[in-house]
């Protein structure tokens, strides 16, 4: 019975150390992706995706180090909050990037927004034409 807690302690310490290092490597991966990728949309992927897993690993290592159960709900709330906010901000940045044409079109494999934009532009020009007719 007596050697059990010490061994368990070492295991928990090792697991949380691995979590911390891998979580930091996720941040490094995001930075490397920011530096190496060619345009805004691919940089957006690199900036937002590894951070969620990295934060999860770091919060898990906090929970393992604290050795109590009541911190886990708090950490879960912090992580869910990150999960809710990161995709929204990435979507907004990607949308603004698409609108201001900060993208290399030759790098896209498919552009689903193109058809919608064309349809809206055609509708707007039709409405413009009918308005012009009424004024004349």
């Amino acid at each position, binding site marked *: 019975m007596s050697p059990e807690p010490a061994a368990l302690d070492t295991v928990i310490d090792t697991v949380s150390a691995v979590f911390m290092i891998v*979580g930091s490597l996720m941040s490094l991966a995001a930075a490397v992706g920011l*530096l190496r990728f060619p345009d805004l949309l691919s940089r957006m992927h690199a900036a937002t995706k590894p951070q969620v897993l990295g934060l999860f690993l770091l919060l898990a290592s906090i929970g393992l180090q604290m050795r109590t159960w009541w911190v886990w709900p708090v950490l879960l709330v912090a992580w869910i909050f990150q999960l809710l*906010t990161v995709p929204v901000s990435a979507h907004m940045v990607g949308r603004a990037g698409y609108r201001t044409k900060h993208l290399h079109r030759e790098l896209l494999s498919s552009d689903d927004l193109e058809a919608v934009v064309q349809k809206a532009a055609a509708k707007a020009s039709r409405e413009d034409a009918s308005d012009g007719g009424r004024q004349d």
Partner: protein
Amino acid sequence: MMEIVLAVTAVILSLAAAGAILRIARGPSLLDRVLASDVLLSILGAALCVDMAVNRHLNNLMLLVALSIIGFIGSVTVARFVADRREQLHES
């Protein structure tokens, strides 16, 4: 063991922060800079997490949540602002 982990993560996070700052300085467009500053903010959050885990306290947890709120509001606002400004330019 925790000291070694702290040193290793400090080196990794410093490299990551240097990369993000380099992208802020070099980024060709405003949105690249916004994205890089968002990454820098989350690297800061990661550093706070490592500090809490190594020193076994929870003082920074609310700061972490506030940091992610600030990053969210900042990047959404700037993205919205850029879109609106370009639209007006396009119309005029």
